[in-house]
């Protein structure tokens, strides 16, 4: 608005409208990064589940013996201690998926995926900032 009171407002976003918009690779029931739609598709019990980059906090890879783990952390209330109104939520009383952890023996792939998610997140934050600067 013109008076510039609204500083942090939740903006709605959407990954897909129809299920034919999923990348064909979801067939393999693996993690798929969909750059074009700003979405990470994660396999949950055989179903491809989209998570928009705006819901993602970060992703990290760790190793334990022959296994590598990829943990994807999502934004949810009660995380950012000390900067409480940094992150707006549409409905803070909802249930939130806070993290998903996968494992695989292909550690290089998880390093690559974690990297791609970080890049996608960085670009998205940058774009948001640019948009906001334009509006100001």
């Amino acid at each position, binding site marked *: 608005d013109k008076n510039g009171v609204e500083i942090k407002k939740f903006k709605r976003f959407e990954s897909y409208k129809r299920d034919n918009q999923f990348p064909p690779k979801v*067939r393999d029931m693996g993690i798929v990064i969909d750059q074009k739609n700003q979405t990470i598709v994660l396999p949950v019990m055989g179903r491809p589940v989209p998570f928009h980059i705006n819901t993602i906090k970060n992703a990290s890879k760790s190793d334990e013996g022959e296994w590598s783990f990829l943990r994807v952390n999502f934004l949810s209330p009660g995380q950012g201690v000390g900067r409480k109104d940094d992150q707006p939520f549409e409905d803070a009383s909802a249930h939130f998926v806070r993290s998903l952890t996968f494992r695989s023996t292909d550690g290089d792939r998880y390093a690559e995926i974690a990297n791609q998610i970080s890049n996608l997140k960085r670009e998205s934050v940058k774009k948001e900032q640019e948009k906001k600067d334009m509006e100001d």
Partner: protein
Amino acid sequence: MAAIESFDNIYLDLSRENGKCRFAESGLGWKPAGGGETFTLDQSNIGGAQWSRAARGYEVKVLQRNSGVIQLDGFQQEDYERLSKIFKNWYSANLESKEHSLRGWNWGKAEFGKAEVSFNVQNRPAFEIPYSEISNTNLAGRNEIAVEFAVGDGAKTNGATPGKGKKASAGRDQLVEMRFYIPGTTTRKEAEGGDA
């Protein structure tokens, strides 16, 4: 309708190998294409069915009367009519078409059904977790619930035998843990693992 309706390239409970799925008045069966044990489900144990989009084509989820779920995926979109008739005529069950949320949101409502917990976004399921796949749950922090999945020796399962504790490790990426933030509850146990 023929006495037997048959579908090829169908996966049972996210098996690696596909097989032939057959429906008859007495129940349904699935046999791996490469040979092996046939899985059967008696019609008396078919309590309902859902149709939805899955990773490999379309999925028929059979809700068993004894509270478990069977997932059959790999169907084509045009199979719906045929399957709908099969369930209606032979099992007196409605093949309910379920559209999943594609919004990409991580907030919604976890709802606990008979055989699985469904995470709903704007009243549409984003995903479901059968209780049979959960190996452990614990309160990981204030308002945070950790759900661990049965992945076993994962890489070695080839999925010919259906059943419990295998779905999380079916794909190339095995889901080992999921955490939820549930506001306003601190001690209530949200999900009971164990055999359903």
